[in-house]
């Protein structure tokens, strides 16, 4: 459980007037894995192996659900919004998608060993990014730079671009920040489109900057984002950057909150 993601979700819900729905999925594979006679659990920190049985797991799941409920309540408490917790059993991606609507925002934190630098994007995150009907925010706790910018990655898909710009506009409406538009290699943006984007974003011309990405090489992208002092990256799931090799590692290594729009 990522408390940081929970807090971020509560803040976003409060800013947008949305309800907060927490989803606690009792993973089916996990429940099953405890049912074998030979099952053992190897401690993540100590490496010590000890018996793993369904009864014990059930109890732990209940305790965890209880903890999640309390964490959800305390995260929402400062803002006073509505919140509910849905406890379901099954596959995480399927269960979440079953609950998610296109207008919903899915907020995912990074937990466990996927938190460490160099880790890969987990299967849950990958599944949701690929299949979510709405936006997915991969939350990452980072240092908020006062002069930081929101970076929006555009591609040649107009509708996808529009969704990304809308997401950026909603984000900066509550906390004003300058915006950088990142264009893929060789692409350009007509000035009237640019003006339209500026209008949609609702920012001054001086706060909008356009930069071209000569390469989708992860190191190059990381450096550029660092130069821009990016505080959040917004991109559509169809954009070239997500398709490039090493993109998953890049998203993890960026140490930035990333919003992926459909």
């Amino acid at each position, binding site marked *: 459980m990522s408390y940081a993601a929970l807090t971020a979700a509560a803040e976003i819900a409060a800013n947008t007037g949305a309800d907060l729905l927490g989803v606690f999925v009792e993973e*089916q594979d*996990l429940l099953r*894995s405890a049912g*074998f006679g030979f099952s053992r*659990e*190897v*401690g993540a*920190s100590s*490496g010590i192996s000890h018996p793993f049985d369904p009864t014990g797991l059930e109890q732990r799941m209940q305790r965890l659900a209880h903890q999640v409920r309390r964490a959800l309540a305390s995260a929402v408490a400062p803002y006073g919004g509505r919140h509910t917790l849905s406890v379901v059993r099954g596959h995480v991606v399927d269960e979440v998608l079953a609950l998610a609507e296109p207008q919903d925002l899915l907020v995912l934190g990074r937990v466990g060993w996927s938190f460490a630098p*160099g880790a890969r994007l987990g299967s849950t995150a990958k599944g949701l990014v690929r299949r979510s009907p709405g936006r997915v925010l991969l939350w990452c706790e980072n240092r908020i730079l006062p002069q930081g910018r929101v970076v929006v990655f555009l591609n040649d898909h107009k509708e996808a671009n529009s969704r990304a710009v809308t997401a950026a506009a909603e984000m900066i409406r509550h906390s004003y920040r300058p915006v950088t538009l990142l264009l893929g290699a060789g692409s350009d943006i007509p000035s009237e489109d640019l003006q339209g984007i500026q209008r949609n974003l609702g920012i001054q011309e001086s706060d909008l900057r356009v930069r071209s990405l000569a390469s989708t090489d992860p190191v190059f992208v990381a450096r550029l984002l660092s130069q821009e002092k990016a505080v959040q990256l917004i991109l559509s799931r169809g954009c070239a950057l997500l398709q490039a090799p090493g993109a998953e590692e890049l998203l993890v290594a960026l140490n930035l909150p990333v919003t992926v729009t459909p």
Partner: protein
Amino acid sequence: MPLPAPLTESQVYHGCPEEKLDFVTTDDLQDLERPYGQDRVLRALEFGAGIQADGFNLFVLGPAGAGKHELVERFLSTHASSQPVPSDWCHVYNFRFSDRPNAIKLAAGEGRQFKKDMSDLAEELGTAIPAAFESEEYQGRLQQLQEEMAKRQHQGLFDIQEEAARNNIAMITTPAGFTFAPKRNGEVIDPEEYKNFSDDEKELIESKVEDLQKKLQQTIQQIPRMRKEVRERVHALNEEMVQLTLGGPIGELREKWSHLPDVVDYLDAVREDVVEHAEAFQDSDNGPPAGLLARYKVNLLVDNAETVGAPVIYEDLPNHQHLAGQIEHRARQGTLYTDFTLIRGGSMHRANGGYLIIDARRVLTQPLAWESLKRILSSGEIRIESLERLYGLASTVSLQPEPIPVSVKVVLLGDRMLYYLLSHYDPDFLDLFKVEADFEDDLERTDECYELYARMIATMARALKMRPLERSAVARLIEHASRLAADQRKLTAHDRVLRDILSEANHWAGQAGAETVEASHLQQAIDEREYRASRVRERSREQISRGVVMIATAGEEVAQVNGLSVLRLGASMFGQPTRITATARPGKGQVVDIEREAKLGGPIHSKAVMILSRFLASRYAGDGELSLSASLAFEQSYGGVEGDSASVAETCVLLSAISRVPLKQSFAVTGSMNQHGEVQAVGGVNEKIEGFFDVCQEAGGVRGQGVLLPASNVEHLMLRADVRQAIAEDRFRIYPVSNVNQAIELLTGLEAGETDSRGEFPENSFNRRVSERLAKFAKASKKPDDNAGVNSGGGEDND
């Protein structure tokens, strides 16, 4: 024996003729460069200040108020001005042993520069190092390093995960770790379904799971080692960054201070320390902790940047802390703490390479100060230790700063008694204070001295910023200086008394609206001082004039004489007559000193009475036995008697009691006497004579009275003007006597008489009467019946 002639007016006073003074006012005179008449002290100071050997510190002896401090400070300031300026000293943090701050010696003036350099460096460290950690280069390298290490950490897990996947086994993340379970079509097999697997299949799966679990265990257990490696590599990277950042500024400082190996070593230690604490500099928002940067400060203990010549320091409160320095503490949240910046130097530090002047009495009255001073002088180094630690009163963690070598010449100022007591009782004293500079109390009064003495007065007057003195005033002051010295051939050298009189004379001149101080103002100052101190004297005289205290100044009486005594009260003294009486009767050759019997007589007085007793026996008993039981008493004296100045008077009154010859009460007698009857000098003659003169005056006027005093005391006479006037008019006479016979003849009017070849005194002589009377006593003593009478304490007195 011929009788002495009475002294003339010129013999009782050594006036200062104004024609000897060749100026109008003291403004015409130049300042004295060297103190007048103190050649012995000056030579001692020159020697003591110049000699380099150990232990040649100085002790300047002299009475309080003699001007020791001023003279010593003036001399040393001149002497020190041509000497080299000593080094600066500072304490810096000791990076190896933090409780033992190091001491660094620098040339005069360099201390300030070094302190500023280190302060600038600390400031630069506070900004440059966080900037280096913020830099893209560092951040990039750090990220690369962390990613690389994380990859290595995770690679093992991924490999196991992949191996599991290849064997259709899922590696599942649990709330606390990992577990393995067989899977099919991407899902974990239902355990119920698994039960239907064949034993072979089960065995295969379970052995693989077991194998994977072992591998996973090994991989996880390697993670701490990897993390440690990461930490080490990050630290190495931090060190590299700091080294690069520090290279410039520290390199410059090393170059600048290359002539001082201690400073270079310190700079190297600073660099190592910064590198070691590189992580503490990473917080760019708050900067490095203040405590860390404070360690690179310099505590400049001795700053001689503005010192000219060698320092001359006067420590007016020479306690342990002020001499040897101290370690201060600050209170923080109820606890006391200290660091090397709270070390404070003492006067020994400031005087290092120069001179330290201390008042001996003050240093002796401060706890442990004298011991600390001696320890510093004998060890040649200053070790700062707090008094409470020396006493064992505090056990908080404190510092032990590196001792600083010291080369200081200490000049103690004190009175003679202190010097002699220290010499006697402190075995270290003469080893450490080998140079004795003894102040002259009095100066020679010769014709040549007038000009110098006048210039000394002029120098004093200018230092006091007072009106100039007229020539007549200087002459009067010179005469008074002789009176203060109680010697016609001496002048007092007592600085404070002269200054006080000058200041007071200046005041009276101001009151009178005069431009200059005249003789009358000076006389007024002397008279006013006398008057202010005269209350007890006047009460004493009043008792005499009213007859409460019985003193006869006319007529003749048997066994009664006027002795003269001096009373000292504070700074003033006065003389007054005392009636001395005697009794005599047959006995066993004893003279009872009633004062001693009553425990009112001091040892010197007792000695004088014993001498007198032996004089009587030797002169009048000859080869026979002295049969005498006599007593002597100072009538109406209740405060104790000390000294031998009444010996002559006591002899005369006792002889009068024996011989029953009356003594003239118009005379007062003073003088000490030896066993042969020779009269010896005594002190306080001026006060004694003036005291008797005043009593006579109040008893109906001075008409033929006088004083008998030792001939050797004539040079000490500096009598008041009214006494001199009476002498000139022959109303008051002073007889200088050299033998007790002269005193007898003057007091009785009879010839004293010398023994002839048969050992007998001439007929009708005073001594013959004494001798005959004693012979009668001897005869009476031999009667057996009489002995019983003597022993029972009865019998007749003075018979």
